[in-house]
């Protein structure tokens, strides 16, 4: 929307590949997936596995 952006895009050859990291950061749904998957695996699932391994008192 800005002049600045247009300037950048005008100067960028069409065939120049977009860097991988920029493609990742420009993909909100991939980031949404990562932002849910990482804490779900490391905090929730791993944590619940540890809870299930607590021995039940006699």
């Amino acid at each position, binding site marked *: *929307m800005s002049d600045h952006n247009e300037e950048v*895009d005008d100067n960028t050859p069409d065939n120049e590949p977009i860097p991988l990291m920029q493609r990742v950061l*420009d993909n909100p749904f991939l980031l949404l997936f990562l*932002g*849910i998957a*990482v804490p779900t695996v490391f*905090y929730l699932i791993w*944590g619940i596995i540890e*809870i299930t391994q607590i021995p039940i008192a006699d």
Partner: protein
Amino acid sequence: MSNNTEFRTCPTTGLKVDLAAEKLIKVNAVAAVVFLAIGGLFGLLVALTRWPEVHLLPADFFYLALTAHGLDVLLVWIIFFEMAVLYFASAVLLGSRLAAPKFAWAGFVLMLVGAVITNIVVLQGKSSVMFTSYVPLKAEPGFYLGIILFAVGALIGCFVFFATLVVARQERTYQGSIPLVTFGAMTAAIIAVFTIASGAIILIPTLLWSLGYVANIDPILYKTIWWAMGHSSQQINVAAHVSIWYAIAAMTFGAKPLSEKVSRMAFLMYILFLQIASAHHMLVEPGFSSEWKIFNTSYAMYLAVLGSMVHGMTVPGSIEAAQRSRGLNKGMFEWLRKAPWGNPAFAGMFMSLVFFGFIGGISGVVMGTEQINLIMHNTLYVPGHFHGTVVAGTTLAFMAITYYLVPLIFRRELMFMKLAKLQPYVFGIGVAGISVFMMGAGTLGVSRRHWDMQFADAVLPFDYPSAAFLMMGLNGMSAVLAAVGGIMFVVVVVGSVFFGRKLEKDEKPSYPEVPPQSAAVAQHGSAESLKIPGTTMLVAIFFIAFVLYYFVNWKYLSEIWPLS
């Protein structure tokens, strides 16, 4: 559908504003301020009860007030305001129409109904289970139902935000990458989705338990999953208020981030690792391994903390670079001395940045260290820490941006300008006092969540050192000061929104005066300058404070827990 969308152009910033988005920003911001006022009042009652010389409320009403305070300020005020931030950062900054405004309204109504239900149920006095509502404490079903409705409404708001990103890209309202402020808001929305999903996983069965359809909820399982909501909801705040720091820096100075790539990577660290810090609350639970505790509470080996430190450097750094480019090059700190300290938006934002880093940030990392946590777990240190992050950090930043929202979005002249100029200082100093004195009391062992710090009715009495009583008195005085600052904010904002002079179409308000470069807020790009000696010095001071405080706590631990 896009043909029916009405836009206006902001005469101050030149931004294209979808009128449907503007209305939603307004209603969410108004609802937020109403609940801030209610929650703040309950907070004052809590602080005056904890002040031993005052001890205002009876025990039952204290726990009711504490429950209402936690819910209204930690959840309702913050999330309503974040919805306003999401609609601003998507539709307004991208110059796009808001996707599905009807859904956004449905979300708002659900949030409002949920918040009202929960407040009514709490005020009825049978659900004083505090914000955490740990089982087996059982609240009335309406308590859980209200929170669930509120969360569903917020989830709808998040999806409207994501849909607006898609619409803006498809309709090519911007080119290249989204602006950094929008990226930060997206980070907040991503964390919000995880937060709300976790809340649903645990609160729906708890509602059924409260209704009698489920026999038992395991307390440790509840606590683990609940904190995925309870702590992560505060991480939404971090991402949102950091975005606001960048927005205010851009709108006030035309500042661009020092390196947009680095700032975006710092937000990525938030997306990946910020939520897992929920494990702080489980640090003394015997059922979890040290591996799980350390991995999670170190924000995956401190990568998310690194993100915060990057923002803590690049925000003032971007301001310094912008100020120096205008010739404020004298010495190390001319750029800071000659900053607009009478502009409440800038003053609030800069104090938010400093307090968040020095008070909330350092104490969070210290408290997240498994060993040191033992000397402060479940003491008043914990609310001291999160008043440093959520109130001195987030609330102060939200208040700061409100001073721009009123003239630019509500289209009203700001009233009581002298009061507005003082407000961030009164509120900021009050809240910083609350945080520091609570942490001091907590370090001396004063318990959190307890009506009577003296344990007067206890079978086995416990004597705190006199310094703990001093800390609680100072905390009470700071709370009064913060409440005065909060009232000043409500008077200025409510007065201006309802009675401020209405601006004509295309009329520029007298406040704020923004430079032409303020359009940077809606652009991507970097300042490409590393001539920031003043910021480097501030960062060095921060690191020294961080290291000293960290080792002071290890020393303290060694004194009370001798291992030789």
